[in-house]
């Protein structure tokens, strides 16, 4: 077995020692990227509030915010947590189980929508909503 850099042996499990980064350039670059992504997210979040966006465009904006968040997560995990510098075996051990989230999110949101449809189809209106006949209650049915 070949040991590359023995001077700083942290543990016997480590075969190839990482060399310390020469400077903090990469850290600060990642910080600016994260800050930019956060500001972009905020711009999207505030724009649908300011312009009362609805329907497909709202879904599109929300999708944009989800993609920006995933980008932030990738930068944090890859650079700050150094997963990008680890060996492939460790990367796969951590990342492959996350594929379960694809099923997890789809199945549960699907179930939530189905529950809403069932409730709207079969529930009688709640008594509190009928007890306010004098005032025009805002029509439910939208997130906004």
């Amino acid at each position, binding site marked *: 077995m070949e040991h590359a850099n023995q001077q700083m042996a942290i543990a016997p*499990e480590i075969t190839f020692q990482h*060399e310390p980064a020469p400077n903090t350039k990469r850290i600060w670059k990642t910080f600016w990227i994260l800050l930019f992504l956060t500001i972009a997210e905020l711009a999207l979040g505030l724009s649908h509030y300011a312009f009362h966006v609805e329907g497909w465009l709202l879904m599109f904006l929300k999708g944009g915010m989800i993609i920006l968040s995933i980008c932030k997560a990738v930068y944090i995990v890859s650079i700050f*947590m150094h997963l990008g510098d680890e*060996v492939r075996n460790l990367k796969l051990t951590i990342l492959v189980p996350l594929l379960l989230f694809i099923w997890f999110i789809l199945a549960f949101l699907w179930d939530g929508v189905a529950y809403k449809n069932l409730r709207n189809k079969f529930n009688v209106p709640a008594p509190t909503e009928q007890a306010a006949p004098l005032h025009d*209650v805002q029509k439910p049915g939208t997130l906004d």
Partner: protein
Amino acid sequence: MSTHIPAGYKWWTGGKSPYNVSYGKLMMWIFLLSDTFTFGALLIAYGTIRVSHDYWPDPNHVFNTFPLMGDANLPLAFVSLMTFILIMSSVTMVLAVHEGHKRNKKGVEKWLLWTILGGFLFLGCQAWEWTHLITHTHPVLIDGKIQEIGATIKENHFGPIVSGLFHNGHQVTLPGPVAFGNSFFGITGFHGFHVSIGVFLNILMYFWTLNGRFTRLGHYEMVEKVGLYWHFVDLVWVFVFLCFYLI
């Protein structure tokens, strides 16, 4: 960081760990993976409940206050500050780890102190936000009567607007979905609990650095492991921020 791993190196031939990290670091990763699913399950449960409702409060309306700004409508401003604080503390943590690689004791101490400060600031912001939501009451029409309620896990005032009905100059609403308070306080509380543990661990790392424990050991790997945990807490906030404040 560069590693000199020869192309086609055989990791699975035995006699060594195929992960090339210490046992403790591998276990930290496995723990974080399990915690990812804990937070994932909480956030997905929140999503399921939310899409099962016809009406859900608009986050731009719920989170529109800022300390010392009274009733000014400032959507998302305060949570942006919280997000910035947490990202910044993540940067100071990674700088502490970087100084640890260079075995610079003073540098590790300095950046750990900044990280601890960031953690306390974040927790302080969260305490303010919770206090504001719970104690700031609004008129709500319940069973035909107007009542002043705050936002708790049992009730909240973020329901649909009763148009034309005002009480002491405030717009009267119907009660909001109870699940909103449940999931908001539950999930941000669980995240805040993680931040508290992170701050505690960082303080522990600071004192261990101070008394020369890592100098004697010859490496700062424990700071790296706590760093992984701290970045994970930041990572969770990215998604809490997305699910509760943005979407």
